């Protein structure tokens, strides 16, 4: 099935081609734009096939299932690949206007494509060790993006990001090795079969906890989120936007995948723990956001808080709750990326990240202020927007299994998120612009000349993403249908196992 390999091959080919033309920035831009468009096309085609024909799998190198590496696309994978492609396209279009010449010369576009290749590989693989390898691919590209041409603040953020992720990778390897020692296989579908009646369930639980820590670090859940607000705000807006939208979701995806397919031996223990973690993540994230004064640091803490909601559906562990989580992830990727892209525009207007010295945007550029307000309100769960439906579905499934504590937490956190956004709105957008040269104005790079054409180039992807945030809200029914299909496949993994293992079962 060639369609399965395309989301990996297209970014790879794009990266190589742009490396070949590394002396010409114009060629690199054109190639990346083409590559991202092609990737989105391939991802939508894959989603379409998975929607109409069910789960797709292909064996790499023609080695039969438990021995070779399998690529699998169920509805969840296909949705995530489509989101990755969408995020890449928006980031590339934004970067055409935003990214400086030096970063382009140092291979910004190839790195972006290699990272997305790693992300798509992680979404499509059906093998734990292969998942590790894809994680490494996306990590090393993201390391370079994070540190590329950085000033002091960016370097400080980068070293933390690199170290915490290297520790997570090491633990991932430990977990994979122990899992192989226990089950004698690393194919996810085969593991699901073999771990059903394993001799030592206590050892499986230990390995499951290791995976929870590893993917918890990647997804930035409580108490493993501290690295995110230190590192995400430091690189340019285009880079932090693709990180904010996608990278934590890779961790969430991996958590949902292994804790619905492989580690379901002791749901009462593991998934309750996940539920508690989800609640603490929401609270810790939003409280952190309330305490911050820098625009992108506020947004970074809100990412953490949102991860809590995305994981909540897994913790509740019903088919409906998983559907709510998938819907929430779809909405979250779009809204968060949008907010970070807007933060780049706002930075150019104000030359500052500190919201207390910002202001006056609503008066001078009401359109841009609106582009911030819509995704921000969606994040808080304001009714007609897409975030509302995700939260509503999560709350309903929480009530259905009588987990009132988490429902109350989610409601309180949503209110606090709204409060937090209101504070940013009134400080950074609504209040009059402070007098130039007043105390505390923090200017990171002095000469950011931004022409009108540049501004328009940066606003195009933002407008499209805002339209998507509204569109997902208006078309909540079909999108929710898609999420429900994904959740059904996650909930009863027998189809997945059947498709991967085939006759070997």
């Amino acid at each position, binding site marked *: 099935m060639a369609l399965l390999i395309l989301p990996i091959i297209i970014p790879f080919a794009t990266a190589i081609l742009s490396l070949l033309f590394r002396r010409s920035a114009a060629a690199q831009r054109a190639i990346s734009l083409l590559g991202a468009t092609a990737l989105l096309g391939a991802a939508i085609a894959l989603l379409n096939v998975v929607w109409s024909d069910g789960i797709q799998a292909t064996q790499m190198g023609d080695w039969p299932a438990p021995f070779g590496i399998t690529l699998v696309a169920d509805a969840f994978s296909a949705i995530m690949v489509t989101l990755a492609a969408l995020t890449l396209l928006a980031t590339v279009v934004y970067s055409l206007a935003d990214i400086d010449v030096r970063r382009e010369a140092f291979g910004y576009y190839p790195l972006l494509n290699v990272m997305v290749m790693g992300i798509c590989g992680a979404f499509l693989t059906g093998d734990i060790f292969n998942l590790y390898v894809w994680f490494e691919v996306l990590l090393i590209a993201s390391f370079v993006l994070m540190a590329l041409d950085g000033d*002091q603040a960016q370097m*400080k953020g980068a070293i*933390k990001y690199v170290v915490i992720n290297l520790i997570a990778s090491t633990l991932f390897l430990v977990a994979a090795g122990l899992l192989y020692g226990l089950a004698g296989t690393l194919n996810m579908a085969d593991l699901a079969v073999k771990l059903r009646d394993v001799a030592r369930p206590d050892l499986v639980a230990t390995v499951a906890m290791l995976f929870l820590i590893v993917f918890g670090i990647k997804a930035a859940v409580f108490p493993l989120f501290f690295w995110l607000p230190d590192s995400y705000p430091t690189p340019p807006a285009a880079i932090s936007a693709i990180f904010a939208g996608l990278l934590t979701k890779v961790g969430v995806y991996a958590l949902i995948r292994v804790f619905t397919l492989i580690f379901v031996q002791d749901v009462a223990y593991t998934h309750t723990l996940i539920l508690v973690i989800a609640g603490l993540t929401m609270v810790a994230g939003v409280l952190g956001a309330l305490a911050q004064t820098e625009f992108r640091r506020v947004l970074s803490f809100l990412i953490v808080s949102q991860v809590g909601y995305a994981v909540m559906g897994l913790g509740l562990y019903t088919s409906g709750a998983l559907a709510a989580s998938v819907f929430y992830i779809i909405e979250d990727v779009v809204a968060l990326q949008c907010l970070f892209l807007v933060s780049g525009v706002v930075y150019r207007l104000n030359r500052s990240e500190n919201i207390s010295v910002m202001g006056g945007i609503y008066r001078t550029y009401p359109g841009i202020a609106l582009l911030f307000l819509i995704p921000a309100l969606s994040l808080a769960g304001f009714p007609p927007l897409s975030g509302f439906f995700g939260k509503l579905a999560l709350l309903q499934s929480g009530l259905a299994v009588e987990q009132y504590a988490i429902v109350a937490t989610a409601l309180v956190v949503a209110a606090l998120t709204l409060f937090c956004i209101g504070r940013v709105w009134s400080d950074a957008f609504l209040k009059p612009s402070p007098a130039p040269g007043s105390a505390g104005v923090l200017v990171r790079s002095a000469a950011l000349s931004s022409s009108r054409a540049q501004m328009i180039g940066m606003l195009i992807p933002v407008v499209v993403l805002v339209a998507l945030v509204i569109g997902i809200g208006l078309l909540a029914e079909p999108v929710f249908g898609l999420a429900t299909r994904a959740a059904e496949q996650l909930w009863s993994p027998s189809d997945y196992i059947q498709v991967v293992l085939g006759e070997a079962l």
Partner: protein
Amino acid sequence: METILAFVVGGLFAAGLYMMMRRSIVKLIIGLALLSHGVNLLIFTAANLTRANPPIVPDGAKQPLPPVADPLPQALILTAIVISFAVLSFALVLLHRVYQAVGTDDIDRLKPVDE
């Protein structure tokens, strides 16, 4: 054999973690290197150490002589070594750049907001 290797793995982990908890970034990277060696040995040990024949079909035979050793752990370790080599060399370059930008390798002086 497993017992000895278990102690070796434990020792490498302890040394690696000790190095990582120092304040210097150089020591942190050395700690990471030790940790990754520990993990490689751990995979080797966890995947059932046996004295067995190599999984290679001899001339004229249809299948290798049983008992056959499992080649997969070695393949995993080899991949892991290659990856950790790449990542560590990147970490060293990054360390150098951080040192140039910040002028220190003391972790306590890498707080995000100290302007």
